[in-house]
């Protein structure tokens, strides 16, 4: 699943470790999500959306059209 996590993080000048700490996950988890190797669970996706104050679908894109 594609996502804009890396861009959103860069806009705030956060390191992966900074974002990981704010989400209470490991830095490796942030890296895996950013590179599309791990799809976050729904609770974590909501947490990410709340942190960036955006709807989930503006951050994650599953490639499906409505």
């Amino acid at each position, binding site marked *: 699943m594609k996502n804009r996590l890396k861009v959103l993080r860069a806009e705030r000048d956060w390191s992966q470790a900074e974002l990981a700490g704010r*989400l209470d996950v490991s830095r490796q988890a942030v890296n895996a999500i950013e590179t599309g190797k791990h799809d976050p669970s729904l609770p974590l996706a909501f947490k990410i959306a709340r942190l960036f104050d955006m709807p989930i679908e503006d951050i994650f894109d599953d490639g499906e059209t409505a």
Partner: protein
Amino acid sequence: MILAKKSVLGPGEARTRTRQRRQMIFLGVSVVIGGTIGGLTGAFDQGDGSLFSGDWDKLKLNPAIAVLVSALLVIGFIALPLRGFGQIDEFKRENNFIGFTGGCLAVLAGFPIWAVLYAGGMLPPPHAFGIWLLGFFGMFASYLIARIRA
């Protein structure tokens, strides 16, 4: 100055450092327990048996040491992994599940394969420690593959 490092940690980075420190302490405790188990069994071993050759009747250990080592094994193989599962995030938990699945499949498939190869005269008969090693290395290899692919 472009390459200058940020000297003040953000709140997230500070929390990540704490998480990494906690993980290192956890690993340190695991190593100490593993080393103690190995040290005790090595220092107080009174028999001539070997786990590898399967001659169990020759294994001998002082009963008090045996109870102590078994308690440490409960901590090392049950309590610590369960506590670890509670501390790691969903990504690492997923990798751990892949590892445990690999270990389980290695035993489920490994024992009958070993048994038929023994029946065919190609291997010695299956023994408990060999089956345990199959599970352990199956788990370890699966975990490594999961980490490399992630």
